[in-house]
């Protein structure tokens, strides 16, 4: 049942373990945190995203499916030499070559600490610190705002941390994880967060995931989250002046194929163009009404495919108003002006000129390069006709 399953994580999230009758989150709490991040990504469409304390890279893996992201970076002090899991899930798969992304994506994992400065992390749109700060000792916690807010200074920062007010609902009365240096209640977190926000000119909003059970609403979310947004987002775009400082060690990096690379664009474009021309060709073949105009066999029908490739009536109308495909001898021609009205072709190239220059490298065009040329009959249409 591979693809229909929830992603399974290797994280040993202590919150989820406690005995069932007490509290069980659905979906599991770690997933709720990740989905919180995903939603924010959906909303703000950041290009550069960094996850501080990426752990097993599950969040990074989930985020790689977002088309808006071009740089995805993970930093973790425990990033050992990369594991099989990370390599196979973060590396591009065959599918990524078949359907390249629109934009480039590079994923890089660094070994390093969130309290060390590395200039490669400057200028990001979004930084996430999911369940990170509670692992910092007081010395590091003191350095943390200066590095993340002051130096890295991304547009948005998400910080999540356990809400200790929720803890009495768990059977064990200790911290949720052995390595936790502290667990704050809402006031503690919000005070710290507001102070930091003020100092570095961010505004902060508080929310959380993991709703308390009925009757215990007063304790608040199990995980409390602060979303920090930089106040003068535009002004500090120019971070390039920061001196290069490479402290983090790169443990893994990979680049995804994208349509920015011409080869990939050609492949996807020609597949899409052939798909469109094929649907018109089949309609043309079965259409009995055709007339001869200047040696061309032109259909009376508009030759617009009725399914799949088109979604809206407006799109249909646009295709209908473009020049019709025609046939000369055993060849079928589709004017580029028509091809470009197909939404999925149009998405890839914006002008007929560009379409022409690209297609001339990949497929056959007619002599004046105004139309795509394909064989009128292939094996299938031949057998279809023989009925």
């Amino acid at each position, binding site marked *: 049942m591979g693809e229909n399953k*929830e992603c399974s994580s290797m994280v040993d999230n202590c919150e989820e373990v406690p005995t069932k009758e007490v509290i069980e989150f659905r979906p599991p709490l770690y997933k709720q945190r990740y989905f919180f991040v995903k939603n924010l990504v959906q909303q703000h469409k950041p290009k550069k995203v960094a996850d501080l304390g990426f752990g097993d890279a599950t969040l990074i893996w989930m985020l790689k499916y977002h088309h808006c992201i071009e740089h995805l970076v993970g930093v973790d002090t425990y990033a050992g030499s990369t594991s099989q899991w990370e390599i196979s899930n973060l590396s591009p798969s*065959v599918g990524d070559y078949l359907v390249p992304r629109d934009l480039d994506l590079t994923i890089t994992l660094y070994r390093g600490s969130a309290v060390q400065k590395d200039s490669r992390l400057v200028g990001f749109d979004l930084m996430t610190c999911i369940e990170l700060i509670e692992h910092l000792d007081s010395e590091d916690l003191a350095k943390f705002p200066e590095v993340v807010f002051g130096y890295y200074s991304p547009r948005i920062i998400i910080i999540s941390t356990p809400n200790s007010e929720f803890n009495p609902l768990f059977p064990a009365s200790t911290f949720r994880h052995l390595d936790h240096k502290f667990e704050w209640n809402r006031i503690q977190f919000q005070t710290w967060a507001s102070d930091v926000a003020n100092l570095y000119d961010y505004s902060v909003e508080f929310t959380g995931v993991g709703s308390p059970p009925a009757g215990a609403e007063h304790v608040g979310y199990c995980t409390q989250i602060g979303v920090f947004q930089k106040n003068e987002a535009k002004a500090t775009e120019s971070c390039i002046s920061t001196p290069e400082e490479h402290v983090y060690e790169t443990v893994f990096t990979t680049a995804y194929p994208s349509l920015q690379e011409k080869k990939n664009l050609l492949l996807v474009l020609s597949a899409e163009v052939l798909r469109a021309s*094929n649907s018109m060709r*089949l309609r043309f073949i079965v259409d009995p009404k055709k007339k001869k105009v200047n040696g061309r066999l032109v259909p009376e029908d508009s030759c617009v495919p009725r399914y799949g490739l088109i979604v809206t009536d407006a799109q249909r109308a646009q295709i209908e108003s473009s020049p019709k495909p025609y046939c000369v001898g055993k060849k079928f021609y589709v004017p580029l002006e028509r091809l470009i009205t197909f939404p999925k072709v149009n998405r890839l190239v914006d002008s007929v000129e560009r379409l022409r220059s690209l297609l001339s490298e990949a*497929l056959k065009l007619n002599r004046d390069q105004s139309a795509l040329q394909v064989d009128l009959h292939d*094996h299938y249409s031949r057998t279809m006709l023989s009925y």
Partner: protein
Amino acid sequence: MFPPFFFFLLYNTHGFHIRFHVEELQLATRLQATSLKERKRFGGIFRDHVVDTRQYLEHVRESTTGTLGRPVKLFTNHFRVTSRPQQVTYKYNIDYLPDIEDGKVRSELLLQHKAFIGECHIFDGSSLLLPHKLLLLKNQVVKLTIEFISELSPNSPDCLRYYNILFRRILKQMNLKQVGRNYYNKQEATEFFDHKLVIWPGYVTSILEYETSITLCADVNHKLLRMQTAYDLITGLRDPQTKKEDVEQVSKELIGSIVFTLYNNKTYRVDAINWEDNPRTKFKKSGGAEITFVDYYREQQYNTEVTDLTQPLLISKGKWKKSQQDTPHKPIMLVPELCYLTGLSDKMRKDYRVMRDLALHMRLDPEKRQHELRKLMNTIQTNREVQRELQLWDLKFDTNFMSFSGRILKEVRIFQGRRAVRQLQNDWSRETRSGPLLNVKSLDHWLILYPTRNYGAASSLVQSLRKVTPTMGIAMREAKMLEVSDTVQSYTTVLENHVSSKTQMVVLLLLSFKVLCVLSSEKKDLYDGIKQYLCVNCPTPSQCVVARTLDKPQTLMTIATKIAQQMNCKMGGALWKVETGLQNAMFIGIDCFHDIVNRRKSIAGFVSSINQELTPKGSECVLETTGLKEHEPRTALKLWCKHNQFLPQAIIVYRDGVGDGQLQALMDHEVPQIESSLRSVSPNLVRKVKLTFIVVKKRINTRFFVESQGRLQNPLPGTVIDVEVTKRQWYDFFIVSQSVKDGTVTPTHYNVIHDTVCFTPDRIQYLTYRLCHMYYNLPGVIRVPAPCHYAHKLAYLVGQSIHQEPHHSLASRLFYL
């Protein structure tokens, strides 16, 4: 000299017996079951390699090497392992509590203890190989137990398995992308824009021990990526007028095919199509919540948009293993739009432009192959990370192709009657038609059925047959010409009315353009329907001719000759013979056909010869899913007795269609089965019938080359290799029997696993090579001994077209040719 005529499946009416069982797999299931148990420890080929079949073969104790033929210097795509660990290594068993299935997680957990295990280690998922002994674990942080199993001596086959794992790791480090079992270089991809295809070049490798050394065998392999989804296929088959998909057509094209899902990089086999549901249908997630497919792909996981909400869904029953066929699976639903097609479709195979472009690219000649493999070896030598990894184990590879001496066997003499036929570069098509055939059948009562408006083609066929048959010695009377329309119904009605017991042959003119291999599915129905009728309901030999092949006047005579010869064979005639050097020997060929559409039904073709002076050969054909049943060799023997009044002295079985890892099972089940049936036929016989059992393998990665004028080229047909790359514990050899025009020739591997005839290497090699000349459909040499290929043809016809037991009266004919 030996009185030597070997005719395969020839003209006696009862000589052949055919039997079909459409039952569940028995042997195959058993084979699978045992192999599954073992799989974790020993993968397919490794298990075969530890089976010592030679130990029982007294007569080749000293040597399995022959001497006949002209020596030739050969190269092979094997690279000698020049250095490897010389000390003992230590094997540890790794257990997880609770048990973890995911191999990745298993290795992940283990690698957390890298500091303890050390940099230098090989882990295969359940056991660990180390060059040093571990000190006792102080505390078990993870619930993971490391248990010492054994010390492995440097020569242990177990070690090789670990080297292979290591080598795969190396390929990964070289930035090759793993797809399935092999590794591909995406940087050197080639795009075919107009075919919507991409090809990644890659490698297949294995490190194994052979006669004198351990070698790395490497071959070039290609991965085909198609830019076409199952959805494209479905919409492509939609009738543009009614907008309805042709349900049957879509099922035919999709079911059984393997699709690749983008989002999770997995492959599934399509088992059915669900036309009732669509992507808006809800399904239950593992958590129990219901969600539509559209929402699932968009929101939950993959950020993927499904655009057509009316498409049907594909159903896959999940990973299929024969041995697990009874365990219930929950079927998986897939959205066609997200499923990419894999492999070559029939449609593409029929498109000569696609095939031409692909062949140009994928069919490497020896020079190019060597070039590609050199590149691999160079990268291994120069890549620093790879070298570091190899040095940890002290592994080194030679960078040059291994070289040794092979032998070219003398040309085989072909006889037509008393006439010896001259071979011209292993082709005697011209010679066969210039004189009388070996055994001629006259055509007295025969029919020609032609589709409406094709009388012209039919009569031109008859005229040309008139011209070519006299020289071949075939007497031909007037045929009855009958017109039919192009439907199964029409053909069968006409046949019903005109075929009598006297009818020797029915010639069917068809409109479709290729008869056996690939027909468009509609035409295939016609072909299947007619063949089924003529093989089961109304058993008569038949010959299909595609009308279009008769269009070209310049080739008409050649085609007519071919048709006449084929008809002659089908009626029980014989075309030519070779000397086998054996008296009273019965030859058996066995091959399997796996029906991909109806997963369960595999079919084994069993063909045997029955004749004492080796003239009429009885071939019993058993087509079925099971391995061998006792009665088949027995019936074959009985038939032989009927014709010869005595039993054959020896039975030589060529067994094709054996998968990796089944060698032991063959030894344990199939060979004893045949032996016991031999005993049961003649329990009182003083002299035992001798048996030789040879396993034939066509799909191998070993290639051979000769150097000529400074270039690597394919070895000549008849080249035999029985040194260096054969195995010490086998009585095996390679023969390059066929010649190829372009690309690299694939040798065939023969493994004699049982031999009470006590063939010397020279004799068995010669015999095998000669049998490769006995396939009547081709006046030339084929890749495998003819019995194997006939068995294959039979299995294929039944599996692909007839799907049931042909009428027993046909058993004596080569009706499947």
